[in-house]
């Protein structure tokens, strides 16, 4: 399938600072691309260039085949863009603002009313339509920005931190909204929330210091973690020493990490495999030989946050203390 968003060797220099350095990527219809990176890595700058707000120092971006430098209006008509911080005109009411955006987008009469109502419905703004935007909470402001981006049902969505400032329920709603739209659109979202990437993104692109450092499915990115295929068992606190010793002896196990404090009377102990190879059988056998019957046993997929830190800080993923095991891993 032809790519709806093509980013070609995009580069942006602010004086001596190279904010975005030779970034290329393509997003096809049906894809939700998670754009990750530490603060200041160049995520927003890249998105601003795709949306035509900043002029690249070199390279270009194409949306549905239209070059943002050569045909900016054609690009802007096909793009729904939520800028960083979701700026809106504070003195306008929600309704007036969305009607204004609809007018700019060329809608009028009944079609305009329908579009505005649909966008407000999708973002649950129905209760605040007569409020001035400046009187709204951060979460509502963000949703007004989102409504504005969705209003014309664009083929391409570029959303800079769409769930920032939302409460957990609103985050869930916005993710459901994005997932529901994903099939017919090409979507790029930037976020700091890694669980969001695992929940809704089909692909993750990581940039650090302006450079693209990873472009892969979230699952295969997580598989780079040294926690990939790690086995976590829970044992009684008095079995701790014996269990660690039994697991550490295995050739297939690279390292063992254990919690210091029991949860519900049980301690979690994780065996990290060598090179991500499955070690479940070996772990079961070793524990059985040591006379330990684990209460539960699960195999980790790998941890995106650890991989994220490893590739954005430029260090290997094996140094430092691993985070406490999380409970959602299967």
């Amino acid at each position: 399938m032809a790519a709806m968003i093509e980013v070609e060797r995009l580069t942006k220099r602010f004086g001596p600072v190279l904010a975005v350095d030779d970034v290329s990527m393509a997003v096809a219809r049906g894809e939700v691309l998670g754009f990750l990176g530490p603060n200041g890595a160049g995520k927003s700058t890249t998105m601003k260039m795709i949306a035509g707000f900043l002029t690249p120092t070199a390279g270009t971006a194409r949306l549905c085949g239209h070059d943002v430098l050569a045909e900016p209006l054609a690009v802007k008509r096909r793009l729904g863009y939520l800028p960083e911080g979701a700026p809106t005109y504070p003195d306008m009411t929600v309704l007036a603002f969305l009607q204004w955006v609809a007018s700019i987008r060329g809608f009028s009469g009944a079609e305009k009313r329908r579009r505005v109502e649909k966008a407000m419905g999708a973002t649950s703004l129905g209760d605040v339509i007569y409020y001035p935007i400046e009187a709204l909470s951060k979460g509502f402001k963000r949703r007004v920005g989102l409504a504005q981006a969705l209003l014309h049902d664009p083929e391409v969505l570029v959303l800079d931190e769409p769930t920032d400032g939302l409460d957990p329920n609103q985050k869930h709603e916005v993710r459901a909204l994005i997932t529901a739209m994903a099939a017919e659109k090409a979507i790029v979202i930037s976020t700091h929330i890694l669980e969001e990437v695992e929940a809704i993104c089909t692909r993750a692109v990581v940039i650090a210091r302006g450079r693209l450092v990873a472009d892969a499915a979230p699952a295969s990115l997580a598989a780079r973690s040294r926690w990939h295929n790690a086995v976590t068992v829970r044992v009684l606190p008095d079995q701790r020493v014996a269990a660690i010793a039994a697991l550490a002896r295995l050739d297939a196990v690279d390292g063992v990490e254990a919690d210091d404090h029991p949860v519900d009377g049980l301690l979690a102990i994780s065996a990290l495999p060598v090179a991500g190879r499955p070690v479940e059988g070996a772990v079961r056998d070793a524990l059985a030989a040591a006379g330990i019957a684990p209460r539960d046993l699960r195999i980790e997929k790998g941890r995106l946050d650890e991989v994220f830190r490893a590739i954005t800080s430029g260090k290997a993923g094996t140094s430092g203390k691993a985070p406490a095991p999380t409970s959602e891993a299967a």
Partner: protein
Amino acid sequence: MHVLLAVTRRELAAYFATPVAYVFIVIFLVMLGALTFSVGSFFERGQADLAPFFTFHPWLYLLLIPAITMRLWAEERRTGTIELLLTLPVAMWQAVLGKFLAAWAFTAIALALTFPFVIVVNILGAPDNGVILAGYAGSLLIAGCYLAVGAAVSALTRNQVIAFVLATAACFVFTVFGSPVVAGFVADAVPAGVLEGARRISLIGRYDSITRGVIAVRDLVFFATFIGFWLYANAVIVELKKVG
């Protein structure tokens, strides 16, 4: 067209969404009245015309027009809404012209509210209403020139105070260029050619002749060119800022 109209309407509504519009209009009318009747000796002159009234327009605009234009771009840049505006399908000329037209329409509203002066002078005597109409046209034109300069200057900064001060200074320069006072002051130091050039781009001389009822095509062309040049400069400035 619908885009230009939408930009203009939003911008015009923004003036009235805050007290700025009302403060501006009240101050404009009060100061104009005070200047016309006291400094301008409206009654003592014993003439049924609005010459003392129109004399003060450029000088009052010098202070008040930058207050209208200072927020046009600076405010959008400060709040970040400029990113929204420039990523909607709005062409640069539509954004620039839409903002300018809104500011101009607002000035026209303020100017229209001076109609009691026209009524008063018509009650007191038999003025040449054609000349008065020409005066209003001239006033609107010089206001347009100041607005175009102010809007372009506003695009330079995110700070409204800087936008105000720079716009006042720039408009002042274009106003006093070639005025008899300045010309007499620098006549010895500056070559005659420079002085003549300065007089040609001076606004006040052309404004004076229009308010006397002399509407010359070349003056109209000059005003249109002046406004067009600054709107173009405005677009270039906004475009350059995208390069960062």
